């Protein structure tokens, strides 16, 4: 691809040139006109397209008016992120897309990695906008950045040095002493251009979709996690990402996004790791100290329609203390600030189910719901390895420090064959790699695999999250479904015609009770399904309540009087990780009525699908090492999928 090479040089030249030239370029790009025919031209090799969709009016292969499930990863870091670079990751955005498409790439620890479950359908590279590309450039001894005291010791392969370097960065960030040279817009622009080039190269409508994005790495005053990924709908993007170096208040980001939208550049922000926010992510108080009001709720809802409910650094659906009656709430829970051992003390405001409950209360009080959130999962890989959340094929997410089992506590130390009696519980250690989960994929229902169709699905929240397996889940609500809906050949067509899909609003209908269609299918390469559940939240006497209903059981079992499916008896052999192949279903399907439905109560409903138990990644690591699993860790997980909610809107 000689054309590519020249284009890149030209970009560097342009940005590294005189200030006037740089400014001219940036202004051009911000208007959406790519400066210099060449930059625009080289975007589209014959095999790829710079635009999202197919040609005018053409339907792509596989187009389905009833919509297909597509799986992807919307949280991916490469060597352009400062932390990934410190962690010795050298995978480029180009490598990340190659990995997503099923190719193998190199890992910082020296081995090659590759997806076992086949290519993903879509991916967004989302590097940290702050100091984007600076660590990479600083590693060039000819770069003036390499002379900065800050950068000394940043490029070590020694584990201790790496962690010290990372901590030094975090400390400098907190004390605001990071040299401004590292945020030189020319450097950021070069890296941002590299992200755009890789996305343009790999976007191929009908086969694989790339989305442009970046991470806005915001924090509360004590380091509470307020991170968001910004995902763009098209190839036209701002000249520079809006980062926390401009403002650490997410409201400023949303205002910037409003301005981009006015210029025809639609984007949405997806918060993640609310579990590490210590209650700030969905707080009742804004960052400026004012209470949540209607204008804030509108601004937030407009810009943040989705939340990343699960990823490697834990699952944020709910916490056992917030959902004491949910037996499955304790799933890959992280109770520490990100990257430190500081304990979380406020779970409310940090978990999604509680936010949904708070959201419907706000809807009553303000007229707008600021937390009307659809769900996705994603990996947050810092290895440039989208979708690397497969339990049997797990290599964690931060390069050298956790790339090998011994580093993440899944095999006994010192080459021992057994675990010492005093094996510590390191789940809450400073770097709790052993508590991290192989979790997080994004699912969307879209007509075809194109940027336009997938972004539209994200916008309307017709999305779902999984803990890694490609479980497909459908969810509809309506008042006029025919009673044979489940046994018709056109179930989905009818469901769209007479109902609304996940992510939508169900308006009240003369006091009638709605019906809910729940339909899930196993990942053909993973385990069998055990049960389908509906999680309901509603307002009763001014309080938001929640309840988990089992709605469909595997193996022909019926929901018992206690509202639960009986145990289907599925087991997994912990010596081989071989599951019981006679238990569980390939599909779960039901038409459900809420036995407690009250037409006057505002409510939300979402689906949770549970697989049979299967080996956790730490058990797979142990088996490959010929040693028992770490006794301090759960040997199995119940993989799962979550649909976006449907909101019931009572008439006033």
């Amino acid at each position, binding site marked *: 691809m000689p054309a590519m090479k020249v284009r890149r040089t*030209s970009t560097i*030249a342009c940005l590294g040139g005189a*200030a006037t030239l740089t400014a001219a370029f940036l202004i051009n790009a911000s208007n959406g006109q790519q400066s210099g025919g060449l930059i625009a031209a080289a975007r589209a090799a014959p095999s790829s397209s710079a635009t999202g969709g197919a040609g005018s009016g053409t339907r792509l292969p596989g187009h389905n008016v009833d919509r297909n499930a597509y799986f992807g990863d919307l949280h991916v870091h490469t060597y352009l992120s400062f932390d990934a670079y410190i962690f010795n990751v050298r995978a480029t955005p180009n490598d990340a897309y190659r990995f997503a498409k099923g190719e193998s790439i190199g890992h910082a620890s020296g081995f090659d990695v590759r997806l076992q479950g086949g290519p993903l359908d879509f991916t967004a590279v989302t590097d940290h906008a702050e100091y984007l590309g600076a660590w990479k450039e600083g590693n060039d001894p000819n770069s003036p950045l390499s002379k900065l005291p800050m950068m000394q010791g940043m490029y070590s392969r020694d584990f201790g040095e790496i962690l010290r370097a990372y901590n030094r960065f975090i400390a400098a960030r907190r004390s605001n002493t990071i040299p401004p040279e590292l945020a030189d817009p020319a450097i950021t622009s070069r890296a941002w251009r590299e992200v755009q080039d890789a996305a343009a190269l790999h976007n191929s409508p009908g086969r694989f979709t790339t989305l442009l994005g970046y991470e806005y790495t915001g924090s509360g005053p004590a380091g509470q996690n307020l991170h968001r990924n910004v995902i763009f709908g098209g190839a036209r993007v701002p000249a520079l990402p809006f980062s926390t170096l401009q403002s650490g208040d997410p409201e400023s980001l949303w205002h910037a996004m409003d*301005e981009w939208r006015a210029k025809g550049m639609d984007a949405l922000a997806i918060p993640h790791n609310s579990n590490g926010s210590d209650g700030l992510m969905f707080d009742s108080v804004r960052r400026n100290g004012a209470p949540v009001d209607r204008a804030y709720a509108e601004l937030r809802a407009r810009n943040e329609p989705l939340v990343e409910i699960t990823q490697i650094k834990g699952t944020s659906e709910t916490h056992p203390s917030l959902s004491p009656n949910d037996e499955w709430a304790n799933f890959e829970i992280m109770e520490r600030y990100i990257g430190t051992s500081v304990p979380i003390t406020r779970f409310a405001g940090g978990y999604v189910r509680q936010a949904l409950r708070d959201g419907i209360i706000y809807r009553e009080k303000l007229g707008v719901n600021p937390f009307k959130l659809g769900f996705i999962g994603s990996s947050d890989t810092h290895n440039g390895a989208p979708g690397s959340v497969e339990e049997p094929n797990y290599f964690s997410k931060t390069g050298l420090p956790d790339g090998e089992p011994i580093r993440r506590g899944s095999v006994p130390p010192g080459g021992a064959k057994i675990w010492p009696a005093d094996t510590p519980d390191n789940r809450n250690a400073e770097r709790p790699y052993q508590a991290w989960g192989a979790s997080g994929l994004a699912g969307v229902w879209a007509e075809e695999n194109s940027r336009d169709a997938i972004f539209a699905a994200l916008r309307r929240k017709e999305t779902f999250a999984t803990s890694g397996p490609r479980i497909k889940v459908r969810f509809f609500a309506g008042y006029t479904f025919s009673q044979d809906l489940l046994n018709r050949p056109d179930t989905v067509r009818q469901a769209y015609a007479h109902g609304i899909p996940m992510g939508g609003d169900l308006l009240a209908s003369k006091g009638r009770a709605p019906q809910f269609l729940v339909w899930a299918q196993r990942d053909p390469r993973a385990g069998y399904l055990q049960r389908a559940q509906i999680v309901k939240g509603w307002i009763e006497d001014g309080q938001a309540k929640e309840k988990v209903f089992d709605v469909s059981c595997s193996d022909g079992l019926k929901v018992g009087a206690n509202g639960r499916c009986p145990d289907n008896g599925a087991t997994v052999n912990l010596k081989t990780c071989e599951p019981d192949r006679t238990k569980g279903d390939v599909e779960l399907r039901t038409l459900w009525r809420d036995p407690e439905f009250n037409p006057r109560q505002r409510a939300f409903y979402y689906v949770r699908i549970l697989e049979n138990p299967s080996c956790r990644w730490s058990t797979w690591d142990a088996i490959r090492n010929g040693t028992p699993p770490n006794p301090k860790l759960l040997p199995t997980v119940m993989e799962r999928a979550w649909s976006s909610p449907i909101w019931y809107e009572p008439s006033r």
Partner: protein
Amino acid sequence: MIRFSNLRRSPFLREPLVHFLLFGALLFGAITLASQARQPVVTIDAQDIEQLAKYWELQNQRAPTRVELAALINERVDEELLAREAIRLGLDKEDMIVRRRLAQKMAFTSEDVAAIPEPDERTLQAYFEQHREGYAIASRVAVQHVFFSRDRLGEPPQAASTLALRRLKAGQTVLGDPSLLPLAYADITTADLARDYGEEFAEAVDKAPLGQWVGPVISAFGVHLIRVERRMPSEIRPFADVRSQVKAAWLAERREDENRKFRLALRKRYKVEIAGLPQ
């Protein structure tokens, strides 16, 4: 000459001291003028200021205030002065970063200068014809299947499918189980089928004769009987659908051509001597 003779009439003007002073004053004036003319000028014009402001706005999402703009301009002046002084002292020589930046800037400038004319339709069509494979859609099939779920509680899927296949071949209709995936596809690639059902299913579809029910085909979900209705070979997308991509690719190639030509021309303008290589 006449004037000169007039001057001679005045005794004052004939004084050598006066000549000396006059000459000195003239010389002083000339030197002052000359040195002022030699003082280099740094101009920050309106366009520069506008660009500074816009660049700032890009980063901060609002226009700079008057004070901020003044600071920006001041910074810009300092930068220019330092840069000029550095060049005057020859600091740009033998500096790899400066050299690299200049080279990159030249490459970029040369691209901008050599404007590529708008290609006409015939040119684009010809380019499209030359690179047809690049605009192909993979081969696809129209296929339907009857599905017998592994979950069914009565008759096991394998047995049910055997009976059903017989009935289908006899032209009778058969009711299978519902599936979350479509039971009929109008236009699907085998790659998509492999993703959703597994390799075995995709291979069976690949091998199936047209218009006949075949099976059983085992997937991760159960047993399928399949019938391929149509095969659509890999197909070149029509020019009209891909015109913008064709144009982009054509422009990219022309740019690269221009770049190559420019570099070749430079090679001719300069004599390149490399140690150890024959001249």
